[in-house]
């Protein structure tokens, strides 16, 4: 601040009284609500998964049917992450850099999977890729159907993560590279892609976490065949229905730890990359 501003003293900071009955009460209410709604139920899952000891816990998640379900879930989630990384970035690029009629409508359509109930998503996919497929592509009750449904529900994550970064990116670097004779492919790989990578990774992590737990869109389309098309969430549901809550709880905790660890790692990466960007 310049010296001649010294006569104008900055306004003194007053401590604002917190609404909702003061700081302590409001903090208490928030903690209580989270405890009742989220923490106590999750604690019940953890307790239940371990109530017969660690041995039973291990047995529940290593029993062949659950291993198959977990493996299928992980593999399909990895596939959709790879597709989303490519197609999500491509769609974001088209929405930001390209210009065509109806672009606004296409842009709002991207959010449709977030707005559409998952069971309706499954039903609609079945209409095009089911037994009565008008194009003769019946994927119902196959592994391909799982990937398709997961692609549908996770579509917005990477697009919406990459889009704002692509808008902000400084185009001068790309133009400089072009004027130095770099090919378009080279410019994309060496100039644009490094800028987009953190956003792509963030979008992929969210898509992966969502895919791990997805249930609604898979119910109608995968047919729930053990060792074939039974993903982890459907397996857990089956265990609940057949009154085996302990084994359901064990697989649940396994999934939970996996996705929480992933989101935690994502937070660390985000913090790390923002520190390096500013430093």
């Amino acid at each position, binding site marked *: 601040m310049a010296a001649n501003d010294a006569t104008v003293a900055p306004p003194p900071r007053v401590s604002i009284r917190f609404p909702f009955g003061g700081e302590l009460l409001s903090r208490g209410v928030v903690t209580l609500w989270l405890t009742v709604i989220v923490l106590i139920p999750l604690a019940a*899952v953890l307790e239940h998964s371990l109530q017969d000891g660690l041995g039973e816990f291990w047995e529940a998640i290593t029993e062949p049917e659950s291993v198959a379900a977990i493996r299928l879930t992980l593999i399909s989630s990895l596939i959709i992450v790879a597709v989303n990384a490519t197609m999500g970035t491509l769609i974001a690029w088209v929405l930001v850099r390209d210009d065509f009629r109806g672009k606004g409508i296409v842009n709002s359509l991207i959010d449709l999977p977030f707005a559409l109930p998952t069971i309706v998503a499954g039903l609609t996919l079945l209409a095009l890729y089911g037994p009565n497929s008008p194009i003769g592509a019946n994927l119902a009750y196959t592994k391909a159907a799982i990937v398709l449904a997961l692609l549908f529900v996770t579509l917005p994550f990477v697009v919406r993560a990459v889009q704002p970064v692509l808008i902000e990116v400084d185009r001068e670097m790309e133009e400089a590279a072009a004027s130095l004779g770099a090919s378009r492919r080279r410019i994309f790989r060496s100039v644009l892609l490094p800028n987009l990578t953190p956003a792509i990774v963030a979008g992929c992590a969210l898509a992966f976490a969502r895919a791990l737990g997805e249930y609604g869109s898979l119910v109608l389309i995968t047919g729930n065949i053990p060792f074939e098309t039974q993903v982890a969430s459907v397996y*857990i549901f089956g265990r609940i229905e057949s009154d085996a809550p302990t084994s359901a709880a064990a697989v649940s905790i396994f999934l939970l730890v996996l996705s929480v660890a992933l989101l935690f790692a994502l937070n660390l990466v985000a913090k790390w990359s923002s520190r390096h960007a500013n430093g």
Partner: protein
Amino acid sequence: MPTASPPTSEGRAQRYGLRVVALGYLALLLVIPVAIIFVRTFEDGLGPPLEAITSPDGQHAFWLTLVCVGIAVPLNTVFGILAALVLVRQKFRGKMILNTIIDLPFAISPVVIGLALLLVYGRNGWIGQDLLDAGIQVIFSTPGMVLATIFVSLPFVVRETMPVLQEIGDEQEQAASTLGANAWQTFWRVTLPAIRWGVAYGVVLATARALGEYGAVSVVAGRISGETETLPLFVENEFTNFNLAGAYAAAIVLALLALVVLFGMNIFKRKESDA
């Protein structure tokens, strides 16, 4: 939109190719499947879908959905604003932990959420039997479905409000306070108007999730037709009973609600970035 470098024919071809790939992908994944549902629903006229949706079970599912949304969304809105204020404007130990817990509903499978409620409020759960003895049935009944809906839609308002609160800072609140406004006046006249579009966006997202929740509700509902069936459960039930007209009709109702949500999202997002 000005493009700096003059487009070469090779560049134009590449750009055109990418556009075709992107739009083709969206068409095959999103647009055509949804369009087919609309066509199939109305191919025999308005009669069958209307009949399915006005059947007693259909109507009951519709009202039960509204009850779940009508309780869960307002509660989470109040909680969301409060939690955002606490997390942005207060300093205390354990803030990081609180912040992480709020995200948990996003990281957990809906089926696991249903199981969690079952293990607390179910017959063999922590307090289920005690509640039953007191005459309160939670699982296989409306309270359980409402709890499941609250759980899955919890983070939206907090997450959309926090960045707005951070951005507006507290200078205006300081000023109001200096001029003698009390805490409530400051909140109603200064803070709330400044964050309203962020809150509205969060409410729209929470409503969409609450309306369409299937997995968590399905575990705790026990699917008793005409009793514990929301619209998404109704869709599944009609489909597995080979009543395609009913399934499609209910799906169309949900899809139209989704379009309204999409519209709301666009409006509030624009208002937010204009503000």
